[in-house]
């Protein structure tokens, strides 16, 4: 039996599809919702898979492997493509040798990102073809096609997915008989193709336009663009997960389902829209299809009715249809809400998190609990300005810690801190950045600080992992994506090597040391780096001597609640510690800060 049905996520399906298509090199930097693609490929021992330092490097590694003739997969989240945009555009210009497929995993609705963006626009900008599956089966089936297109048309292929395709599980018929094509690995010297001097690049540009014209013809006939017959109104043009919502909302409609989102097939679109009475485009985020179709002179409707921000669902699409008058009668039930105001349940730093003490200290040094109200705004300058970065530690911005003033994109904390300092503020400025983020894009910030004689302090929260995205290794851990022990990059030596003189390494669970370390760094008028080091709580398995509160000694001062530890709870006026979640000896932060010494190991 070579075929079997499995329940797979879109990411697992991409990995399996790529493996069976003969992928030999895969490179990525973690990022929700793309991470599991590389994690899955890394389990195939006859493929080289790496966590790259960042997305730009991943793209460059991928481009090199492609030049050497092997099929290559590069994957990242939507904002990762911003980081990798430079080599991506270069890849679009030089073209490929072995097939190069670039996965962009977009996050409509911002489940776990710093922003919402529609990366379909990148395809048009780079003049590269783009495919988009609507579920796991298509993810599995489109990947081999993407490699074929890449090689045949000498172009990287952008393969766009969204959270609901990447992370949803659906049924895939896995065909074990798909043969892996043999590869001929060799690099050919070819200056005109690979060396983008202006004179060479200029000759490539017309070829990029030519390939898009050819691909337009391909799009007219490819089976991944297909019509599903139904009633003559509405006609729905759709692609990506939007198709699934539309199919459910309008089961009787006629569909033009596009698997190739760029370039579009003009004749197919003309014929389709001529056949139906009214044509609607159903797509998440920007009116990318809608505008591309309108430019062809074809009248379609879409975003006038369908929300532009966030995720869709079947009801939202149905409601849009009602508004547009395609669904004659509306029998919609009215929405209901809970009859009381519900407290939120934001994500929190875990009990035993090595970031907690540092944020507790920043909160107290900056007198944030006293000086800031709960609104999250203040007209006064804070007496300690804390630029933040992206990772679990961004949660330090929430109450009760409140110890972060900015978060933009990965690595930005250091540049922003330099900018705020150089603008001439009177407060001290400290940048807070995680270890994986520091290696991803903090190093160039430190170089800038050294070079331009900045006086900021940089706090590197080193928990020995990329926690936010699910504990991937990174250059600082010394273990590769495929579990091989390698050389670890030493952050302390690295920053000293760049020229930082004042560098400290501090135990993350020693509150006094963290406090005096940060204080001494801030007190000096020079650039300093404080590395706060402690293992991520989720990776700590040993758990003993959970802490408890001695009710006889506790005077309810609530200082311990200011750590924001979810194991410490107050019910009916009494503070207690949940034994199931307390990390005990691995942490001990609450015990150190309790003014009454009312907290100690469970006896």
């Amino acid at each position, binding site marked *: 039996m070579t075929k079997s049905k499995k329940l797979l996520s879109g990411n697992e399906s991409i990995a399996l599809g790529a493996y069976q298509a003969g992928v030999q090199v895969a490179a990525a930097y973690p990022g929700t919702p793309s991470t599991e693609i590389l994690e899955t490929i890394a389990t195939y021992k006859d493929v080289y898979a790496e966590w790259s330092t960042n997305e730009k490097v991943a793209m460059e590694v991928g481009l090199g492997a492609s030049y050497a003739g092997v099929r290559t997969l590069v994957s990242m989240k939507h904002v990762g493509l911003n980081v990798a945009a430079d080599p991506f555009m270069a890849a679009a210009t030089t073209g490929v040798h072995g097939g190069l497929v670039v996965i962009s995993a977009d996050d409509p609705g911002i489940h776990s990102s710093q922003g919402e963006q529609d990366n379909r626009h990148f395809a048009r900008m780079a003049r590269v073809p783009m495919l988009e599956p609507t579920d796991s089966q298509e993810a599995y089936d489109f990947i081999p096609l993407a490699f074929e297109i890449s090689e045949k048309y000498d172009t990287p292929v952008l393969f766009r997915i969204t959270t609901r395709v990447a992370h*949803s599980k*659906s049924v895939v018929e896995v065909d074990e008989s798909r043969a892996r094509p043999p590869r001929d690995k060799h690099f050919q010297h070819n200056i005109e193709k690979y060396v983008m001097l202006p004179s060479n690049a200029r000759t490539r540009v017309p070829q990029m336009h030519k390939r898009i014209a050819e691909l337009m013809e391909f799009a007219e006939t490819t089976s991944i663009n297909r019509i599903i017959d139904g009633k003559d109104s509405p006609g729905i043009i759709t692609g990506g997960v939007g198709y699934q919502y539309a199919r459910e909302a309008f089961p009787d409609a006629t569909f033009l389902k596009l698997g190739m989102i760029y370039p579009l097939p003009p004749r197919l679109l003309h014929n389709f829209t001529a056949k139906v009475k009214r044509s609607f485009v159903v797509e998440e985020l920007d009116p990318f299809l809608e505008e591309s179709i309108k430019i062809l002179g074809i009248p379609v409707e879409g975003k006038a009715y369908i929300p532009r921000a966030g995720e869709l669902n079947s009801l939202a699409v149905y409601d849009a249809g009602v508004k547009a008058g395609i669904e004659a009668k509306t029998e919609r039930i009215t929405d209901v809400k809970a009859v009381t105001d519900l407290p939120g349940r934001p994500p*929190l730093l875990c009990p035993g998190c090595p970031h907690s003490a540092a944020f507790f200290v920043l909160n107290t040094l900056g007198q944030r609990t006293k000086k800031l109200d709960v609104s999250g705004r203040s007209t006064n300058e804070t007496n300690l300005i804390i630029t933040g970065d992206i990772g679990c530690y961004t949660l330090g911005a929430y109450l009760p810690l409140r110890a972060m003033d900015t978060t933009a994109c990965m690595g930005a904390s250091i540049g922003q801190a330099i900018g705020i300092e150089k603008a001439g503020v009177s407060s001290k400025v400290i940048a807070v950045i995680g270890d994986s983020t520091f290696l991803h894009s903090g190093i160039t910030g430190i170089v800038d600080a050294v070079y331009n004689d900045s006086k900021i302090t940089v706090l590197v929260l080193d928990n020995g992992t990329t926690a936010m995205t699910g504990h991937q290794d990174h250059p600082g851990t010394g273990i590769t994506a495929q579990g091989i022990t390698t050389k670890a990059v030493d952050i302390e030596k690295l920053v000293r090597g760049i020229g930082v003189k004042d560098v400290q390494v501090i135990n993350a669970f020693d509150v006094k040391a963290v406090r005096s370390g940060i204080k001494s760094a801030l007190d000096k008028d020079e650039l300093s780096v404080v590395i706060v080091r402690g293992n991520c709580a989720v990776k700590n398995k040993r758990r003993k001597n959970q802490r408890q509160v001695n009710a006889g000694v506790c005077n309810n001062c609530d200082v311990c609640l200011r750590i924001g530890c979810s194991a410490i709870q107050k019910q009916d006026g009494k503070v207690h510690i949940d034994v199931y979640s307390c990390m005990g000896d691995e942490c001990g932060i609450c015990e150190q800060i309790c003014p009454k010494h009312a907290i100690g190991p469970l006896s």
Partner: protein
Amino acid sequence: MIKKGDNKQDILLVGVGGQGIILASDIMGEAALAMGLDVKKTDTLGMAQRGGSVTSHLRMGQAVYAPLISPQGADILLAFEKLEAVRWVNYIRPDGIVIINNHAIPPLSISLGMSVYPTDEAINKSFLQRTNKILMVEGSRETAQLGDVRMLNIFMLGYLSKLSPIKITDYLWKKSLSERLPAKILDINIRAFERGQEAAASVNI
């Protein structure tokens, strides 16, 4: 309203990170697939490692399109925690079934004195706007008696198995459980599953 295909079940599982919600929906999804149904499921955890809200949309039927259950579309809401249950009141379809583990995990804002936990009465009232099929289950208490509250997810599945119109055989349930749970905790989890089934035996809705 969106038309519903035959034999279609939309189950929304909700609770708090760490309660095993995603594993529970995986186990049921695999069992439904083994039964020959089309299955789609999607989990939403936001940035939560631990302690944040978690939901899992599990959809089963002859042909399932959308990965997400729409508001007003869930046939069953399976809630592992009371506050999380009521957060999703708008997702239950008219006359749908609401199963709530009678357990409260107060979020930090409550410890900080910034908000209050909804009363049982308020929770009940919220759901009565849509359905009176509201079932409170002593899942946390029963699994604590069995020795480990971490089996709550399996207990809840056992309870659900008796109430879902999709009749997965005990054989397929156990097969799916054995494929997803480590061998050394399998037996005790099967006991938790059966305890859940027993708890649902007397329910009549």
